[in-house]
């Protein structure tokens, strides 16, 4: 839910509750005041009545008018001398309706005999007054609610605009580029502060990204150079004529280790570079066609291992991605399918409009298939395998929004890349 909508809803709900409470309270206050007024008038009339009765010692029910209607009834037996106000309905003489009255009931002695006296006052006018006031209240409160609600919406929209503009810019921000983040300035201090903080963070990110990138490149250089030196020295050394069998063994070991380390270094740096998203160049590529071309590089080894090729294509898989990464991805997949294949096996390349699948015959996995794509997960303990190939494939897929899945249907292992 958007902030503005949420705020509007809360505001609407809260003001509705408050206005309702205010309306009800107002209604009760008015009602109380009217009753108070009527009752005090009834009390005055009661005094008048009592004064009249005291001086005349008699009362005749001759009053005709509804207002100030006084009803005097004799009481027989016991009674409780109390003064009570009650609401009552009395039939209208002319209309078929009952009108509300407020009634004061008390007991008094007229001519020595006890009487119950009820003095009434019509509430019609008062009720009409209450209705009118309530209606006006509701109308005004409603109008107030709607207008403040609209005002609030427009105002919030205006106030939050710089925030949303800045948000859009932050969303567009790319730390791999050199362009700094610029947030929108406004009169509101908090937004400006937020903008400052974001800009600072963004420039720090760009800076860190640059230094990381430089570090990976420098590390590569710094490590590869001594390795190149070891390689070169070994190559020079093996030129000497009088090498014993022991010597050649040791040299071979040194040479192997240095080459392995160099490849390991390159593999790890590649992983770091993919992770840091240093392959930003993008092109629309046909992965099926690339894979087919890649197979040509492996012609010799396929022939050597007598691996049968099975090509199935039901469409070309087009994908916008870095050409360098696509090349590495396919090379590693095919390399993997050849390395873990056996002599006389089969390599199948299938492709459709949204997938490429490389399958190969091979021995069942010794380890957990879930961990197949982890770094340094090696199937064979052979020194030739680095255990980085599929980790690199996975990393590329993660970065290029491709899905990767592994399936084993004895004796075929297949790895499927889906767009």
């Amino acid at each position, binding site marked *: 839910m958007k902030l503005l909508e949420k705020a509007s809803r809360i505001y609407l709900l809260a003001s509705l509750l408050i206005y309702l409470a205010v309306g009800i309270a107002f209604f009760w206050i008015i009602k109380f005041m009217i009753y108070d007024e009527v009752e005090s008038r009834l009390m005055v009339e009661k005094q008048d009545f009592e004064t009249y009765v005291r001086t005349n010692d008699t009362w005749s029910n001759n009053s005709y008018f509804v207002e100030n209607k006084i009803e005097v009834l004799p009481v027989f037996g016991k009674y409780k001398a109390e003064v009570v106000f009650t609401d009552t309905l009395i039939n209208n003489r002319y209309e078929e309706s009952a009108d509300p009255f407020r009634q004061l009931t008390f007991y008094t002695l007229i001519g020595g005999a006890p009487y119950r006296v009820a003095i009434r006052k019509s509430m019609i006018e008062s009720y009409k007054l209450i209705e009118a006031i309530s209606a006006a209240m509701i109308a005004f409160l409603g109008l107030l609610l709607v207008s403040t609600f609209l005002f609030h919406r427009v105002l919030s929209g205006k106030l939050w605009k710089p925030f949303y503009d800045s948000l859009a810019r932050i969303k567009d921000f790319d730390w791999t580029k050199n362009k700094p983040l610029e947030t929108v300035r406004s009169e509101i201090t908090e937004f400006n502060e937020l903008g400052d903080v974001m800009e600072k963070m963004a420039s720090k990110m760009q800076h860190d990204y640059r230094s990381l990138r430089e570090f990976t*490149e420098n590390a*590569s*250089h*710094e*490590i*590869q*150079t*001594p*390795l*190149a*030196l*070891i*390689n*070169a*020295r070994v*190559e*020079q050394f*093996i*030129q000497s004529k009088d090498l014993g*069998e022991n010597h*050649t*063994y040791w*040299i*071979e070991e040194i*040479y192997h280790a*240095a*080459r392995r380390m*160099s*490849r390991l270094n*390159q593999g790890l740096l590649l992983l770091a570079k993919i992770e840091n998203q240093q392959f930003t160049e993008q092109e629309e590529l046909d992965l099926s066609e690339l894979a087919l071309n890649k197979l040509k*590089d*492996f012609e*010799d*080894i396929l022939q*050597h*291992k007598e691996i049968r090729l099975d090509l199935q294509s039901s469409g070309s898989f087009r994908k916008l991605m870095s*050409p*360098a990464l696509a090349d590495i991805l396919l*090379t590693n997949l095919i*390399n993997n399918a*050849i*390395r873990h294949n056996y002599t006389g096996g089969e390599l199948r390349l299938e492709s459709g409009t949204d997938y490429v699948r490389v399958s190969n015959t091979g021995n069942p996995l010794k380890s957990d298939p879930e961990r197949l794509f982890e770094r340094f997960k090696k199937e064979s303990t*052979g020194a*030739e*395998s*680095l255990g980085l190939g599929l980790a690199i494939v996975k990393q590329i897929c993660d970065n290029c929004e491709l899905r990767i899945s592994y399936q084993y249907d004895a004796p075929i292992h297949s790895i499927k890349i889906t767009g």
Partner: protein
Amino acid sequence: MKILVVEDEKGLAESITDYLSREGFVCEVANTFWQADEKISLYQYDCTIVDLTLPDGNGFDIIQTLKKIASATGIIIISARNTLEDKLKGLEIGSDDYMTKPFHLSELNARVKSLIRRRNFGGNNDMIWKDIRVNLPARKVFIKDIETTLSRKEYDLLLYFLSNIDVALTKESIAEHLWGDNMDSADSLDMVYSHIKNLRRKIVEKGGKDYIQSIYGIGYKFTAP
């Protein structure tokens, strides 16, 4: 043939010059950008081997200067940077070849020779050693003037040997020369073995001597028996 090696790592520069001197080249070394800059403005070289990362400058600048003042010089970049961008940039500004560290000296040697051959003869010459003659433009091989048919890889292998006569070559460097460095499985060493076997057989069949000598644990050497 004069070669300039621009490399800040002194040991590596020394290895390269030692190796290439054995092949009959006259080598000079520049360890810094300014030394290199001075040397290329003073002397003429047939080939320059340039490291891109130098402590006081960028190898690309040296290449650009070289292209301006001595465009006939062949240029080979040796760099630890293996990104595609660097390789493309290197070729764009006029270098002839790009090698990623660590590389094999034998490979560097082969590339220097092929570069000089291309520069000097436009590739239009024969490579002759003992009773082997290779016609480069037609990719034809003659043993004692009898043509012998070699597969593409056998041909590449023979050229690699001919560029490194009397040099011990490791199996790994041969495999890398033939298939590049993405073929790193143990299988590629087996393939080297079978290609060597075939090449040896084809040379001997046509009356040549067995020039390929195996060196236990290391690799092979092409030499007169």
